[in-house]
């Protein structure tokens, strides 16, 4: 098993190296002058030249890339041109907000998607199945940025039930920093006021972000349950008069969710991308919001760091999925 994990880890290295090269060259070769963008519209050529020199844009590409590689090895991504702070500090500070949001979305999608998928399979080709199919295709078809705005319109502006934006109400001090997850930190430190407030702020963004995952998990659970329902043991139990409810929710479901759980791992990359949109709409102070600011201000250092971060997260999640699959099905380990 250890050998299997190590082989998986080694396979990832060329992809990550390629990613580093590709993103770096795209940013340097694709013609927009980062120095001019940094200097602003009214800068003189002399000012632009100075910035170009200051940031090392006048060095040969290979030298710039070598400098970058050495920096990445030290996790030193330089200073963000947008926030004027080290990129690694910015990312470290913002990552928990994004992780809290994506994990909340993932938990919601799983908790709702697995029962809905089971329901669709049980009512196979009857109206609940058709309705759920249209809904699950719709979940992928809806534009997250529009859905988020409509949710804000109804629940925050018209009804006033939930807050419009942010992670906490402006007057409220954030809980003491332990994990960076407001929900967990506020519970640990006994700040129940902050817990309730953070939870209310989390509902709309997490729900928006969960839609795509909810649809995927529903579909995969449905397919898995349909498969299991045709197994001999189900026919046998049915023939024996075993009550349908416990049969499906206890025995069939337990045999069916493996494919759906594999999907949950794969969804994580998509969730991070979705966070870009959702965080922008809800002013959520995470990585996604930061990414958009970096892209809009052509902040190349932040863009490179974030691309790499996403690549690493994607690789880790894929390894985890492979390892979990290997644990579930030993044949996968042998055939490698």
């Amino acid at each position: 098993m250890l050998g299997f994990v190590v082989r998986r880890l080694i396979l990832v290295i060329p992809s990550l190296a390629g990613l580093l090269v590709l993103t770096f060259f795209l940013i340097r070769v694709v013609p927009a002058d980062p120095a001019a963008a940094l200097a602003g519209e009214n800068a003189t050529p002399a000012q632009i030249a100075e910035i170009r020199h200051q940031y090392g844009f006048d060095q040969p590409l290979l030298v710039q890339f070598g400098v970058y590689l050495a920096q990445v090895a030290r996790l030193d991504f330089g200073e963000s041109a947008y926030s004027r702070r080290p990129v690694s500090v910015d990312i470290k500070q913002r990552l928990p907000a994004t992780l809290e949001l994506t994990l909340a979305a993932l938990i919601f999608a799983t908790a709702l998607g697995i029962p809905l998928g089971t329901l669709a399979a049980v009512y196979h080709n009857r109206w609940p199945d058709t309705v759920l199919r249209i809904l699950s295709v719709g979940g992928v078809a809806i534009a997250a940025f529009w859905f988020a705005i409509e949710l804000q319109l109804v629940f925050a502006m018209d009804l006033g039930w939930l807050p419009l934006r942010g992670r906490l109400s402006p007057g409220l001090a954030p809980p003491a920093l332990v994990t960076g997850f407001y929900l967990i930190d506020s519970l640990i430190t006994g700040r129940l006021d902050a817990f309730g407030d953070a939870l209310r702020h989390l509902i709309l963004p997490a729900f928006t972000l969960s839609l795509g995952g909810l649809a995927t998990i529903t579909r995969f659970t449905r397919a898995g349950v349909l498969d299991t329902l045709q197994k001999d043991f189900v026919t046998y139990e049915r023939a024996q008069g075993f009550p349908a409810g416990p049969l499906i929710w206890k025995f069939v479901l337990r045999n069916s969710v493996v494919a759906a759980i594999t999907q949950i791992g794969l969804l994580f990359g998509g969730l991070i991308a979705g966070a870009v949109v959702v965080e922008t709409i809800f002013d959520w102070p995470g990585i996604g919001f930061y990414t958009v600011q970096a892209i809009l201000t052509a902040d190349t250092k932040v863009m490179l760091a974030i691309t790499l971060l996403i690549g690493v997260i994607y690789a880790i999640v894929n390894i985890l999925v492979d390892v979990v699959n290997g644990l579930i099905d030993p044949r996968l380990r042998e055939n490698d």
Partner: protein
Amino acid sequence: MLILVKFAKDKPAVLGAAIVLAVVAMAILAPLIAPYPGDVAASHLLQRLKPPSPEHPFGTDNLGRDILSRVILGARGALMIALLVVGISMAIGVPLGLIAGYQQGWLSQTIMRVTDIFLAVPQLILALALAQLMGPSLESAMLALTLTYWPFFTRIVYAETRRLAAALFIDALQCIGAGAPRILFLHILPNAISPIIVRATIGMGFTILVAAVLGFLGMGATPPDPDWGLAIAESRQYLPEAWWFSTFPGLAIFLTVLGFNLLGDGLRDIVDPRLRRSR
């Protein structure tokens, strides 16, 4: 005929096909059916932000333009972008997939590793970065979307080619001296066309969605284009009063993408029994 009968029984797929046909018809006939076709560029400040009424069923926007007309006219741009992006992505991705799947060696390896790298970055983020780097405009947005979408076709065609290249009829063709281009384009490609069509249909919906995000973030269409994503971005500062301003362009995106996805879903069931959704 059997396929048509089967398709007709699949109600969600028929619904999808109907929506797609309606949107395509709307796009073609847009200048004829839009009540105020001049509202692409015109502005009527006295009429601004009027709620839905018989004259303006979807209300008017911040410049007094009829939102129904702009939603109808916007279908043209959305479909055009999607067609171009998916079409060019296919033109790049399909041949690369055929070559990588048929040949063994460094060329195949290089193509597939580059494909993997592109697929490892979320498409939206890569497209955003590329669009910004090329200078925000509709052309950059389309180029960025194409650059990020071709690997999906390469991946599918590669897998299909690998599967087909091992088939007996390909061995036979090689024995009678058929060249690689002939085998690839006349024999393997027609056998791999079903998954390509399914991917292209779903890709149309997906591209419309991502293009709308780019427009919304100011990286795609520019004012006064009647772009759906752009309209939603413009509407934000007039909420909650002008709810119709954001709601109707968003519904247009939703219905169009839903149509393509339902259609693609239904097509997959019919053309590819291995991926069959309902057993």
